[in-house]
């Protein structure tokens, strides 16, 4: 059974690229357009991995991660931040919020697959 990934980014082009890339690698991918949308989707379906952008309208990545970690179903689900903001400050905040890891944008699609494989196989 293919693993379910929730990919959250407010940029349609990034969303499309991530979606295409991960689907090509055999994952099942669901998109969300911002944190709040992502949270809704996470509530309605259990995902094996959450990939989220940081800077988004309505609810940003950190707030989303915090909200997810409060849900029993997502306490141990890996969450990766895909973000251009990869300052140490951001990483500190990311870790404090409960992120599993981070990946810097721009990234090579193949690298994304590689990282995702490391996390959920």
């Amino acid at each position, binding site marked *: 059974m293919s693993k379910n990934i929730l990919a959250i980014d407010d940029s349609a082009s990034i969303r499309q690229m991530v979606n295409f890339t991960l689907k090509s690698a055999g994952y099942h991918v669901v998109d969300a357009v911002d944190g709040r949308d992502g949270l809704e989707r996470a*509530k309605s379906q259990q995902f094996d991995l959450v990939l989220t952008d940081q800077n988004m309208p309505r609810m940003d990545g950190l707030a989303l991660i915090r909200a997810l970690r409060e849900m029993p179903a997502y306490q141990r*689900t890996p969450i990766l931040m895909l973000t251009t903001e990869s300052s140490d400050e951001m990483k500190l905040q990311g870790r404090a919020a*409960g992120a599993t890891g981070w990946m810097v944008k721009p990234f090579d699609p193949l690298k994304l697959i590689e990282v995702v494989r490391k996390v959920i196989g």
Partner: protein
Amino acid sequence: MSIDMSQFYQVFFDEAAEHLGQIENLLVSIDLRHPDEEELNAVFRAAHSIKGSAATFGFSDMADITHVMESLLDEVRKGTRALSADMVDACLAARDILTAQLAGHRGEGGADPAHTSAIVTRLEQLLKAGNSPAPVVEPSPAAATPAPPVAAPPALSSALTAGVFDVRFVPEPHVASQPELLDNMLDELGRLGGVEIVSRPAVDSDDPQWCLKITSMMPADMLRDVLDFMAEPGSVDISPVGGEPPAGEETAYGFFDPLPDVLPQAAAGGEEAARVECVAVEDEVYGFFTEPSPAVESRPVEAEVSPESVAVAEAVVPAKGGGDTSIRVGVEKVDQMINLVGELVITQAMLVASAQGIDPVLYERLLAGIDQLQRNTRDLQETVMSVRMLPISMVFSRFPRVVRDLSRKLDKRVELKLLGEHTELDKGLVERLADPLTHLVRNSLDHGIETPEKRRAAGKPETGIITVSASHQSGNIVIEVGDDGAGLDRARILAKAREKGLSAPDSLSDADVWMLIFEAGFSTADVVTEVSGRGVGMDVVRRNISAMGGRVDVQSILSVGTRFTVRLPLTLAILDGMSVRVGGETYILPLGHVAESLQPTADMIHSISGVPRLIRLRGRYVPVIELHREFGVADGCADWTRGIMVVIDVDGSQAALFVDELLGQHQVVIKSLEANFRRIKGFSGATILGDGRVAMILDLPALASRARRLQSVAA
């Protein structure tokens, strides 16, 4: 496996264009003294989003500019830097460059490199200057002078501007054998930034190379200086992580710092909770705060979910499909659809025509079906046409910027009011309206609105008002551009017109005098300004609008203001037409230009040199064009008192078209002639009638100007 990024370009282009539009709108309307926090965030986010996507898809030029822009905006939105008009100017200029770059990537033009680097420099200067709290580090000679040791522990807080270096070296043998020397060296490096040991040679290793990752605000040369004391000559290799310098800062986050204050992760495993594992230390672009635990890999996550949360998950109906409530479709697809609906309308009309005269009792069901088809076709047509409809805000949205830039340049104070932005019209019209309307707005600002001094002297508020409004009026869209400026000066326009050799008798009505400003080469500006005063413009405005089947009117009152009114048909694909018969031919006249129709009596007809040429209509002479003569229809009616005169009005000039009879009014689907034939004078297109015949659609503006010429020849 490789992934072709170019397949995502189109989405990126659309998205970036949207963000650029948003940046412009927000910046233009932003309140410098009390900027709205949400607006600042939105501008920042738009720039940030473009940066992220541009970099991902390899458009590094755009990523570079948005990067500087973002840094500036970030400080503003965090409140560490005050917003200034200069900053807004620079960001707007950068936005324009980005727009040009985007066009370049689309294959339409591009940005001027000199211009681009000027803007980047300007943004960088703004970033460096003023109240920035964080020092901006540049690898300049000044920064290379030894800085006082950083008092703080290897500061990570300033890493926003820090670079990351991949450092490899082989210690000199005497150093390698003395651990305390190595420790000294590491301490020394530690004062320059964060040091992380990626690999150190094992005690008996053949490979004596050290590998460090250093995060430092210092240039590479300074690191080299420290290492040169200890390392074997030539063995030191320092390379910035992450490729080319401008983006280097961004891609350079692959190291994993010993970050303090770690919150232990639930899944991290008990031991070493305070230290962070970095499984991906060799990599530059990602990392894990916690090692992806084998538990996660081997067990499906579902197994961890408590029963009640599963129940909850099942109880909630999953949101099916995408969350987007709109889709992007290529224009050509929509056009194809409209074309097909056009064909359907014609087929339907044919069915209706051929069903006329059949026995309604015998064919009751067929007739009912045709009726139903007619209704459905009309609904379908309306729906499909509405797909092509765009709000006029697409055009209006550029005006705040135009007005802002121009009023700054002209030292005028102007408030822009936009009304009816949601009025929809055909996409084709929206695109073609942009230039003429922009010209009208610039014209109002340049020639209409007075300087604050003049306004004060005239007892008006110093800030002038330009109002741009759009509304629907009986199948037309009406757009008005008005100002509360000086108004048109009748005497000056007349004088100027005479100077240009135009016929301008004093007896002309105001309305006719105002129309003179649309004549080619007419400009009353005392000084030809860069803005709108080269005398090209208003005539082009009128010509463009005429070409869309519309018209422009002017109203003006001296020192009160001027108002331009543009009337256009709602769509270009379908028009309301009047069908007329000339001999055996049927022609379509666009209804918008038809003023009236009448059967002339003998006393209305006026001849010149014995040839009937004019009709006298309520005291005015109207030139007549006999369509049967114009188009060489042999069997057309020649007796004016037995046919019909259709009076048309185009841009205020009238003409009467002589036809045999009026057939009716209908909506006709316009088929382009140029697509298959060359352009034919006097016709703007063709359509297919219900009986399957082709009817030409007359180009009334062309016929009206021909009538004007006939009249002047006759005179």
